[in-house]
């Protein structure tokens, strides 16, 4: 629920209750006051009649008016005084209406009379109704105005908040940007902006430090690795030593090489993650695929693989090195995990690149294969377990959809280019 909706509900709800209570109170008070007034009129009528009877010792001549009637009727006993409101038939106006009726007894020449004075409450009621109508109208109008003003004012007040949110959601952590949120004249928003600014600055600093660390760690690691490599190479010049330690030295050499490649892959992943590749080069995918196949020709012949190439010229705005890595890793896997005399099918059209290959491996776990360092248990540790993670990372940063399927005994990897 939006804050405004919630606030309006609360505000309107309480206003309506207050108005209802207030209006009812007002209504009853007014009703009471008006009724009192009618009572006074009735009482003064009584006094007049009583006074007349006292002085003249006979009942007065009555002229009934439209809203006041007086009736006399003889009674057996002295009549008790009562004052009531009731509905009665108004003959003059030919309708039922509320009247206030005062009944009292009077004695004329030893005879008991019951005097009934009726006074129409019609005026009072129409007056009350009018007031109720005006009140309701004014309440409605005032609520509507509040609602509109709130909406306008609140929208305006919250503007800096939405601006900040906009900036925050468009913000990308890249180690060199800062989030400069606009200054507002609302303390709370400034507080929020300052907190977010401080947080972002802190995160940027950490990110910068991490990046520097990764770069430094890579540099610091590559140099010792180079030392290991060149010293190993010096060792293998000693043929007498080789006779005894040949395989040991060979495994040192290979391990150093592997560590170095792993290091390079991790660096590449970090670099892709931090979006440091600008996708602004024209990449001809079909050419790259063909180039890669040419480079790998020896390995394809070695495994006696049959290649089916179905490509059409496709070019897009991308990054050449990343495209090469993407193709290289997928095609490399298709060869590496293939079996002798297996098949590789490469399909490329303007919408997607599909690489399918046969393999000794069963269907792979789609949820795991793109994880870092995941290796199918049945494969040897010749890959570093990062190839598909790198492909996935490249696809993610560029909005390409990477998918894996196992169909017709083929492992199928597809990269779907975003729709044009």
């Amino acid at each position, binding site marked *: 629920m939006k804050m405004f909706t919630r606030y309006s509900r609360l505000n309107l709800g309480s206003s309506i209750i207050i108005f209802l209570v207030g209006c009812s109170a007002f209504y009853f008070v007014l009703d009471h006051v008006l009724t009192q007034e009618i009572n006074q009129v009735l009482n003064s009528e009584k006094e007049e009649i009583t006074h007349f009877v006292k002085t003249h010792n006979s009942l007065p001549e009555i002229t009934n008016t439209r809203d006041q009637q007086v009736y006399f009727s003889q009674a057996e006993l002295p009549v008790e005084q009562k004052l009531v409101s009731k509905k009665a038939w108004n003959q003059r106006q030919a309708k039922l209406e509320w009247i206030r009726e005062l009944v009292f007894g009077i004695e004329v020449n030893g005879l008991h009379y019951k005097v009934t004075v009726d006074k129409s409450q019609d005026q009072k009621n129409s007056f009350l109704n009018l007031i109720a109508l005006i009140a309701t109208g004014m309440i409605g109008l005032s609520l509507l105005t509040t609602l509109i003003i709130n909406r306008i004012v609140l929208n305006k007040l919250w503007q800096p908040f939405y601006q900040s949110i906009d900036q925050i959601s468009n913000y990308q952590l890249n180690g060199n940007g800062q989030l400069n949120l606009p200054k507002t004249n609302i303390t709370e928003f400034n507080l929020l902006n300052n907190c977010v600014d401080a947080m972002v600055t802190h995160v940027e600093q950490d990110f910068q430090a991490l990046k520097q660390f990764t*770069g430094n760690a*890579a*540099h610091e*690691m*590559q*140099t010792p*690795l*180079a*030392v*290991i*490599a*060149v*010293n*190993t*190479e*010096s060792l*293998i*010049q000693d*043929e007498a030593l*080789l*006779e005894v330690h*040949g*395989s040991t*030295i*060979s495994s040192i*050499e*290979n391990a*150093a*090489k592997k560590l*170095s*490649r792993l290091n*390079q892959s991790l*660096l590449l992943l970090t*670099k892709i993650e931090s979006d440091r590749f600008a996708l602004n080069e024209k990449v001809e995918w079909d050419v790259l695929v063909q180039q890669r196949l040419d*480079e*790998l020709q*020896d*390995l394809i012949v*070695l*495994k006696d693989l049959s290649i089916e190439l179905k490509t059409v010229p496709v070019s897009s705005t991308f990054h050449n*090195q990343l495209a090469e890595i993407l193709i290289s890793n997928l095609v*490399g896997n298709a*060869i*590496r995990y293939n079996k002798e005399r297996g098949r590789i099918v490469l399909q490329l059209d303007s919408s997607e690149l599909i690489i399918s290959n046969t393999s000794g491996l069963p269907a792979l776990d789609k949820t795991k294969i793109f994880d870092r360092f995941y290796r199918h248990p049945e494969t040897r540790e*010749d*890959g570093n377990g990062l190839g598909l993670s790198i492909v996935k990372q490249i696809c993610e940063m560029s909005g390409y959809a990477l998918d894996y399927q196992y169909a017709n005994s083929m492992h199928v990897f597809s990269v779907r280019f975003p729709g044009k």
Partner: protein
Amino acid sequence: MKLLIVEDEPSLNKNIVDYLVGRGYLCESVNNFQDAVEKTECYEYDCIILDIMLPGGSGLRLLQQLKANRKSDGVIIISARNELDDKIAGIELGADDYLTKPFHLPELGARIAAIIRRKSLQGNNQLFFEDILIDIPAKTVSINNQPLQLTPKEYDMLLYFIINKNRVLSKSSIAEHLWGDDMDLADNHDFLYTHVKNLRKKVLLAGGGDYIQSIYGIGYKFSQA
């Protein structure tokens, strides 16, 4: 042929020097930026092997100074940073090649040889080894003046062997020279063995000597039989 090695890691520096001296080059080495500047200002080198991260300054700055002084020394950058930007910056500043650490010394040797050949095109562009003659610009090989037909990979391998003659070359060094990182994909080094076997057979059939020795499962050595 005079080379300057600019590398701050002592062990790496020494190994490179030892290897290149063994290849018949005249080598001088320094381990910081200032010494490198002094050396390059005073002397001419056929090729400078230059590390980027140096105490006292960046190798790239040295490269800029060389260019400003219109020096024609060949430069090969050796760096721990395999960053494309660095590579491009280095090449744009006039470096001839870029090699990422760690590398195989024979690979460095092959790259240096290529740079020196390019720098001195008017000079000797033929490489001899016993009865084998390689015409590098034409990419042809002859044995006892009889042309020898080789595949491009076999040609590369022979050239690599001859540049690194009398030296044990590990299989991974040869494989990496020929196929780059893809060798990683091959199931094992038998693959390399096939290529070496073919080359040896061709040389022998053409009347050449048996120069390729297999060394204890480590690799091969190209030397006089």
